[in-house]
């Protein structure tokens, strides 16, 4: 019998792939956001509105994770940006190797983007654990889901730099204590930014677009000099 002591991260292979992606995105100045939420909270609708608003100013692209159907990627293509569906079969999250493979297969269509929008599989739990080489995670919570969710699913709200509260046009019709949710997020993640939007009416969407443009400018300004002259 032999015992070998190691201390190897179970997700080391994913972390290594994510590191490679992050290095490549740094060279091209591509802002990468990883959107995570439960199914039906409005990720694709937010991204459709984002595509329509920003595609004239920025080169956008999308990767959409789902168990089945390429409906989401098709919706983003219909909104005017290149997008590829990643079908996970049954897996409840995207991992960094799937992002690598999807970008390799799309080639030029998704190369050197200004902003890559990754829409994770609808799930508030598992995607939280997988680094995709993103600049930051964005958690979405729709007002119809209930105002206790940040404390019920603390990991994602603690890790997401930005939480977008969606479907704000429905606030008059639901019992959703906005202040309570903002306080829960502040307790879990003091520096997190919270936006309140409705992609349907456009309410608050300017704040979301401005955030993406500011973060994209910051990423672009940090591109290593060698990569710019190359």
């Amino acid at each position, binding site marked *: 019998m*032999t015992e*070998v002591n190691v201390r190897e*991260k179970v*997700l*080391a*292979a994913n972390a290594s792939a994510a590191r490679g992606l992050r290095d490549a995105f740094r060279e091209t100045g591509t802002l990468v956001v990883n959107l995570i939420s439960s199914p039906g909270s409005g990720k694709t609708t937010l991204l459709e509105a984002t595509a329509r608003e920003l595609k004239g100013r920025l080169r956008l692209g999308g990767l959409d994770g789902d168990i089945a159907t390429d409906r989401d990627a098709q919706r983003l293509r219909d909104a005017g940006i290149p997008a590829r569906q990643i079908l996970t079969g049954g897996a409840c*999250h995207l991992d960094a190797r799937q992002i690598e493979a999807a970008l390799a297969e799309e080639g030029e269509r998704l190369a050197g983007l200004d902003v890559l929008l990754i829409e994770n599989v609808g799930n508030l739990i598992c995607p939280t654990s997988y680094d995709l080489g993103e600049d930051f995670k964005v958690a979405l919570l729709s007002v119809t889901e209930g105002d206790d969710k940040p404390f019920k699913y603390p990991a994602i709200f603690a890790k997401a730099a930005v939480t977008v509260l969606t479907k704000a046009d429905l606030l008059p019709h639901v019992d959703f204590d906005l202040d309570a949710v903002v306080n829960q997020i502040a*307790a879990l993640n003091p520096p997190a930014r919270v936006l309140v939007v409705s992609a349907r009416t456009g309410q608050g969407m300017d704040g979301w677009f401005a955030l993406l443009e500011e973060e994209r400018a910051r990423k672009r300004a940090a591109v290593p000099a060698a990569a710019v002259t190359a």
Partner: protein
Amino acid sequence: MHEIGLAAEIYRIARAVADENGGGPLESVTVAVGDLAAVEPPLLEFAWRAAVEGGPDAGAGLVVEWERARQDCAACGEIAERAPGSWLRLCPACDEPLRVTGGDALDVLRVVFSGAPERERGAA
């Protein structure tokens, strides 16, 4: 149910460690799981049995060592109290947000397999 994918990674890492050390079938693998790692030990153990079943390492055990996060309040110091099934967000004494550190471990700690490493056999 991302525990299935995690169990497959644990098996891949453990098998590689045993192979590098000239070992035979796995006896047991010990992993550290932090209480903020979003991993449920019973689900991980179930997924582990599925990962090794029917192969040369069938029957190998998975031992989970639970690692707790530490919660500190700026005013009151370390807070040992836990919320059920989760961690506290606010200090129970003064209601200020707690600083949470650690608890995110998800590591393979030890691999036990039958057979001795080549170098130890040679030295014996």
